[in-house]
C-alpha cells in the first residue's frame, strides 16, 4: 500500500520541503491561527476570572502578527509561497499591516461599545470571529490563485455575516444580517461559477501563470467577458461598487456601529489589493486586461457618481456614510487603474487615510448615538453646544473626507489625481480623462452632504434638549486620536509615504 502512494506521488518529499520552507513567509497568519485557538479557550475559561481576557489575547495576537508582517517588508519572498498560491511581496505586506491596524481599532471600538458590553452572549465570540476574518483578509490581499481567492473571500464573508447578526437585539439588525447573507451568498455562488469557467478555459487556477493568460487569449472574447463578469460579481460585492452595492446602505444602517465601521474599511482594503493583484497579473496587451480595465473604469465612474449623488438625499447619518463609502470605492478603483506596476504609493496612502477617517467617523457616530440616541441628521441640531469635542472632531474628519487642504484627505486625492494624470499622459487613454473629470466633480458634490453635519450641529438649534446618557469617554478619545492622525498625516504625508 505504501509503495503505491510513493508511486503516485514520486516528489512527495520535495513537496513537503517546499511547504516547510513556505511557512516563515506566512508567520503572521500562523500567529493569528494560534491566537484564534487561544481566544476560543480564553472565551471558555479565562473570561470567568477576568472579563478582559479574550480582548487582551486578541489585541496581543493582532499586534504580534503586525510585527511579523513588518519584519518581512524588508525581505520579500520572491518565489511562490505554497506552490504559487500566495505571493508575499512588499505590497501584500503593507496591506497586511493596514488590515491589522483596522482590526485593532475594531477590537478597541467593540471593547468600548456599550451595546456589546451589555450583550448577554458577551463579546468573546466576536473577537474569535474577528481573528478568523483577519486571516481571511490577509490571504485575500496575498492570493494569486482562484482557489485561494475564493476561500479567502468566503472566510471574510462568513465572519462578516456573523458580525452583522451578532447582537440581533433589534428587528433591523436581523434584517440587515439577512439581506447581507442572502446577497453575499448569491454573489459568491455566481463568482464560483465564473471561476469554474475560467478554469475550464485555461486549465489552471493560478491566474499569474503564463498558461492562464494563453488560455484566456485563445478563448472567444464573449466567453471571457462573461466569465470575468461573473467573477467580478463576487469581488464587486466585497468592494461595494455599482451595480453590486444594493446591500450596502441597508446593512450599514442596520448593523451595530462598530461592525459598520469594520465593514466599510477592512474588506475594502483587502478587496482593492485583490483587484490590483488580478489586474496587474495580466500583460497590458492581453485581451482580458483591456476588457477588465474598461469594465472597471466604467464601474468606477458610475460608482463615484451614484454614491455621491445618493448620499445627498439621506437623512440617516450611517446611511449617508454608507453612500459616501460607495463613492470612495469609486475613487479607490480609480487609484487601482492608475497605478503603474511598481508605484503603489498613492493607492496605499489613500487606503490608509480612508480607513482612519471612516473608523473615526463611525466611532463618533457610535458615541453620539449611545449618548443621545441621535441617528438622524435632524436630531443632530444643536448638539455642537452639548458635545463640543465630539462634533468638532466630526467636522474636522468631514473636512478631510471631502478633500480640503491641509488634511490627509486632500493629499490622498491629490496623489490619486496625479497618478491618473500621469497614466493619461503615458497611454493617452480617454477613460483616464473621464475618471479625472468625474473624480473632481464628485469631490465638489460630496462637500454638500459632508457639511450637513456641522450645519446641523453648530448652526441650527434644537427645540428640546436631548436626554444624555452617562457613558465612558474611551471611544471619544480614540476618535480624537484618529482625527489628530488624519490632520497630522495631511501636514506631514512623508511619515506614511516614506
Amino acid at each position, binding site marked *: 500500500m505504501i509503495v503505491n502512494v510513493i508511486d503516485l506521488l514520486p516528489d512527495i518529499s520535495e513537496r513537503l520541503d517546499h511547504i516547510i520552507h513556505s511557512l516563515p513567509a506566512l508567520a503572521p497568519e500562523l500567529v493569528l491561527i494560534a491566537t484564534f485557538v487561544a481566544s476560543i479557550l480564553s472565551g471558555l475559561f479565562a473570561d470567568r476570572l477576568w472579563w478582559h481576557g479574550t480582548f487582551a489575547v486578541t489585541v496581543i495576537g493582532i499586534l504580534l502578527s503586525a510585527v511579523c508582517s513588518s519584519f518581512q517588508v524588508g525581505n520579500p519572498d520572491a518565489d511562490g509561497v505554497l506552490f504559487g498560491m500566495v505571493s508575499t511581496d512588499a505590497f501584500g505586506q503593507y496591506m497586511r499591516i493596514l488590515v491589522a491596524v483596522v482590526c485593532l481599532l475594531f477590537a478597541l471600538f467593540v471593547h468600548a461599545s456599550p451595546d456589546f458590553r451589555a450583550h448577554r452572549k458577551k463579546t468573546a465570540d466576536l473577537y474569535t470571529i474577528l481573528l478568523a476574518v483577519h486571516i481571511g483578509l490577509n490571504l485575500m490581499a496575498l492570493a494569486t490563485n482562484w482557489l485561494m481567492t475564493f476561500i479567502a473571500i468566503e472566510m471574510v464573508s462568513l465572519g462578516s455575516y456573523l458580525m452583522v447578526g451578532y447582537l440581533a437585539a433589534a428587528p433591523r439588525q436581523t434584517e440587515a444580517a*439577512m439581506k447581507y447573507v442572502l446577497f453575499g*451568498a448569491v454573489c459568491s455562488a455566481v463568482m464560483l461559477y465564473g471561476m469554474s469557467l475560467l478554469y475550464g478555459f485555461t486549465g489552471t487556477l493560478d491566474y499569474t501563470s503564463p498558461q492562464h493568460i494563453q488560455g484566456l487569449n485563445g478563448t472567444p472574447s464573449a466567453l471571457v467577458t462573461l466569465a470575468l463578469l461573473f467573477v467580478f460579481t463576487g469581488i464587486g460585492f466585497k468592494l461595494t461598487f455599482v451595480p453590486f452595492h444594493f446591500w450596502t446602505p441597508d446593512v450599514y444602517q442596520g448593523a451595530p456601529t462598530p461592525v459598520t465601521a469594520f465593514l466599510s474599511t477592512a474588506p475594502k482594503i483587502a478587496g482593492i489589493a485583490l483587484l490590483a493583484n488580478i489586474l496587474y497579473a495580466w500583460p497590458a496587451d492581453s485581451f482580458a486586461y483591456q476588457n477588465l480595465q474598461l469594465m472597471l473604469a466604467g464601474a468606477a465612474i458610475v460608482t463615484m457618481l451614484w454614491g455621491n449623488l445618493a448620499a445627498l438625499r439621506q437623512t440617516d447619518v450611517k446611511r449617508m456614510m454608507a453612500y459616501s463609502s460607495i463613492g470612495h470605492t469609486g475613487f479607490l478603483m480609480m487609484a487601482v487603474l492608475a497605478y503603474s506596476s511598481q508605484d503603489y504609493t498613492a493607492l496605499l496612502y489613500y487606503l490608509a487615510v480612508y480607513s482612519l477617517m471612516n473608523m473615526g467617523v463611525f466611532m463618533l457616530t457610535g458615541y453620539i448615538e449611545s449618548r443621545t440616541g441621535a441617528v438622524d441628521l435632524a436630531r443632530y441640531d444643536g448638539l455642537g453646544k452639548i458635545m463640543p469635542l465630539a462634533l468638532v472632531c466630526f467636522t474636522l474628519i468631514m473636512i478631510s473626507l471631502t478633500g480640503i487642504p491641509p488634511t490627509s484627505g486632500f493629499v490622498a486625492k491629490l496623489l490619486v489625481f496625479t497618478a491618473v494624470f500621469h497614466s493619461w499622459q503615458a497611454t493617452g487613454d480617454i477613460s483616464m480623462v473621464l475618471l479625472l473629470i468625474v473624480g473632481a466633480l464628485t469631490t465638489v458634490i460630496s462637500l454638500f452632504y459632508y457639511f450637513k453635519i456641522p450645519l446641523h450641529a453648530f448652526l441650527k438649534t434644537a427645540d428640546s434638549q436631548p436626554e444624555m446618557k452617562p457613558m465612558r469617554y474611551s471611544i471619544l478619545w480614540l476618535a480624537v486620536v484618529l482625527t489628530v492622525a488624519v490632520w497630522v498625516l495631511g501636514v506631514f504625508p512623508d511619515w506614511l509615504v516614506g
Partner: protein
Amino acid sequence: MITLTHFLIVGACLFSIGLYAVMARRNAIMVLVGIELMINAAVLNLVAFGRYDSEHYGGQAFALFAIVLAAASVAVALAIILNVYRHYKTINPEDINHLKD
C-alpha cells in the same frame, strides 16, 4: 457517449434554475436552495473540467473546498433567518423591509 458538453449543459441549466429561484424571492429558504443549486452547478463544472487537469487535480480540490464552504454559509444563513423569524414572524424577503431608502 457522455462528453464534456453534456456536463456543461447540465451545469448551465442548474445555474439558471438556481438564479430563477433567487430572483423569485418568495421565501428566504427557497433563496438558499437556489444558491445551493448555483454552487452545485459550479462544482459540476469544476469536476468536469478537472478531468483534463490530471497533473494538479485543481478542479477536484476546488470542488471539495466549494462544497465545504457552501455548507458553512448555509449554516450561518439559517441561523440568521431563524433570528429574523423571531422578530418578524415571517421569512418572506418582500415583507421584511424596515430598512430602505
